[in-house]
């Protein structure tokens, strides 16, 4: 090895990575994950048993559901992504983050936004657009904090000591750019006072912009950054290289290009102009290819590490996460076909689809990363591998119960709505009859959700105990009573 590159290697090994910020994001991810999922459970109960809101306006379904979606998307998933991005990009670029100050403004700013959301939404302060409910002052705060993150992100890239950007970074970058574009364009509104505003778009145009945003929030917050995390943490976890570099190139560009078009599949058979609906449907179907490219690259990277599937819960979590990614990215395009959508739309099938992605892909990937990352940054052994395995099984059973209940519920109700008798009249003219039919599924969903939340609590306990464990390589502390 020439002397120059040896010196380089020494310098690189001496990089003082900022893991304190990673720890902060991990703690926030766990705390808000528990909150967001608990709120979800209360909502599930409110559907199965309407008096569950106890007459309190702040926790009625209509006000609370946005809190659930915002908490799990922006608080749980957001903090999970930031933890992984801050950890991995420093290592991939062999440099500390660009600015400690910006890292901390990003962290505290993001948490303040979440707290503001948790206060404003139950009060009924909302823009009334799904996943973009937060009122305009909070939206401005989000834009500012996102720009802080972007400066820190691109600043870190600018001071990198590795010339070539690894595939994980491409996916992170697509998130940083696209989320900024989506957030700003969809939230353009004119304030009518401090707490209220009206969007610059009206009617079907507002609907199109909103679902362009909504669908790509799924695409660029719940998909691409997590694929990026997969490209870093999955190979790390199994100690094998990524299956195919070429595949990652193709599926990256195809994914980010096609995703943006697919929003109108949320508006099939609506009053949206037909050409836009058709574009949404066609591009949604094409999305199968790059989505499955990502799934295959993940699964095939696990190839050769299948023995670990029995012993290592982290590998189990990755295997199921990637499998659910493949499943929901097959289901999504199917539901975007007009004929299927005519049955599935407006039913619980949609809810089931979203949760197979959210619980199955995002959640399981988060757990896989956390069980690997917490021991690394706290420099401790994982407290209990057995408990992590138990969490894996509980979460998997929970997802299956949840998703199967929602499929059954959705298809049942969809078929009842459209049933026409021989006289050409509605077979179930009473809407409520079609709701009552769903109650057993709502209770099963509640059981599935409870199992998933219990697993989440086990994860928190396991990771807290890990952080409090004796540092790896040091003898156990002397019992105090030995005096």
């Amino acid at each position: 090895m020439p002397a120059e590159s040896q010196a380089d290697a020494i310098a690189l090994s001496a990089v003082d990575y900022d893991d304190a910020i990673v720890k902060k994001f991990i703690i926030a991810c766990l705390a808000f994950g528990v909150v967001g999922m608990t709120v979800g459970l209360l909502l599930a109960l409110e559907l199965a048993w309407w008096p569950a809101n106890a007459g309190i306006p702040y926790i009625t379904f209509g006000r609370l559901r946005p809190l659930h979606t915002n908490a799990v998307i922006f608080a749980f998933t957001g903090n999970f992504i930031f933890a992984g991005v801050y950890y991995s990009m420093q290592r991939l670029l062999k440099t500390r983050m660009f600015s400690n100050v910006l890292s901390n403004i990003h962290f505290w700013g993001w948490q303040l936004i979440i707290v503001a959301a948790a206060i404003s939404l139950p009060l009924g302060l909302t823009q009334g657009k799904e996943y973009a409910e937060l009122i305009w002052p909070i939206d401005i705060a989000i834009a500012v904090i996102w720009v802080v993150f972007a400066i820190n992100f691109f600043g870190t890239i600018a001071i990198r000591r590795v010339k070539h950007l690894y595939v994980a970074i491409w996916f992170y970058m697509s998130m940083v750019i696209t989320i900024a574009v989506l957030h700003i364009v969809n939230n353009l509104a004119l304030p009518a006072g401090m707490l209220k505003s009206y969007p610059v778009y009206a009617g079907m145009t507002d609907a199109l912009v909103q679902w362009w945003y909504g669908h790509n929030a799924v695409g660029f917050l719940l998909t691409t950054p997590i694929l990026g995390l997969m490209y870093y943490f999955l190979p790390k976890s199994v100690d094998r290289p990524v299956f195919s570099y070429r595949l990652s190139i193709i599926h990256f560009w195809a994914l980010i290009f096609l995703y943006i078009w697919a929003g109108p599949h949320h508006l099939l058979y609506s009053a949206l102009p037909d050409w836009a609906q058709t574009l949404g449907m066609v591009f949604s179907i094409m999305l199968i290819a790059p989505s499955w490219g990502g799934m295959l690259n993940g699964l095939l990277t696990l190839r050769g590490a299948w023995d670990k599937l029995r012993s290592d819960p982290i590998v189990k979590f990755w295997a199921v996460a990637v499998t659910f990614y493949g499943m929901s990215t097959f289901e999504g395009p199917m539901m975007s076909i007009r004929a299927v959508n005519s049955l599935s739309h407006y039913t619980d099938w949609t809810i089931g689809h979203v949760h197979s992605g959210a619980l199955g892909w995002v959640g399981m990937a988060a757990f896989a990363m956390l069980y690997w990352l917490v021991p690394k940054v706290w420099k401790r052994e994982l407290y209990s591998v057995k408990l992590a395995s138990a969490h894996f099984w509980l979460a998997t059973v929970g997802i299956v119960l949840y998703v199967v209940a929602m499929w059954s519920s959705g298809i049942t109700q969809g078929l009842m709505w459209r049933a026409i008798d021989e006289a050409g009249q509605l077979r179930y003219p009473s809407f409520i009859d079609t709701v009552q039919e769903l109650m057993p599924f709502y209770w099963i969903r509640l059981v599935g959700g409870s199992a998933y939340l219990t697993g989440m609590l086990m994860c928190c306990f396991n990771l807290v105990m890990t952080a409090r464990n004796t540092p790896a390589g040091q003898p156990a502390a002397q019992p105090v009573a030995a005096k």
Partner: protein
Amino acid sequence: MTTDPRNHPAPTATHPPSWHRRLFEGRATFFAVATTLVISIGGLVEIVPMYSLSAGPEQLEGVTPYTPLELAGRDIYVSEGCYNCHSQMVRPFRDETLRYGAWSRAGEYAYDRPFQLGSRRIGPDLQRVGGKYPDAWHWEHLQDPRSTSPGSIMPPYPWLYKGTVDPADVQTSMRTLKTLGTPYSDQDIADAQTTMKVQQDKIVASLAGAGATAAPDTQVVALIAYLQRLGVDGRRAIKAREEAK
């Protein structure tokens, strides 16, 4: 020094530097710009034509802006998150037109900011609910959904009977909407308080006829005004268009 397997294949004889590596991976700014372009195309192609007369949403003659009281009611509808359980979009299927009425046209939503199409029908669609029931039905239903709809899973909304609407806020909203293009005249905005009062009194009188005592400035009265307006213009305009054919 061992090669980290997670890094790209090193540019050796077996892995020559790929075009992608040369073109993008070492050039972060160029990569970021290319990404921005690639993610912009779809949105531009779909959203921009919405502002063209020929490709955008079809207009529907006879659809007029919400009255001040209806606007206040609509804000309550949005604030309570009704869209989380109720859609406002009748699809062009036989079962939906049988259940709800005429299927929805784009022009009906011309003054809807924000749109409230919804994505899940935990309760029925509301696009054609205007005029379907008397005011007193809504009064009963919002207070105790099971009194009018046995087996309903909707929660009661008793606080709407105490909360009030402020005409000054409605005027602020109207001014904002006017700036955005809703055709409210300055006179409409100046008269808002009176217009509201007239409509409130009308609803209060219809409720009194059914034995219910309502305070005119309560939120529930505004919400009833909005619900009774839903889909009415559209239904009339669609009928007029069909008769003209």
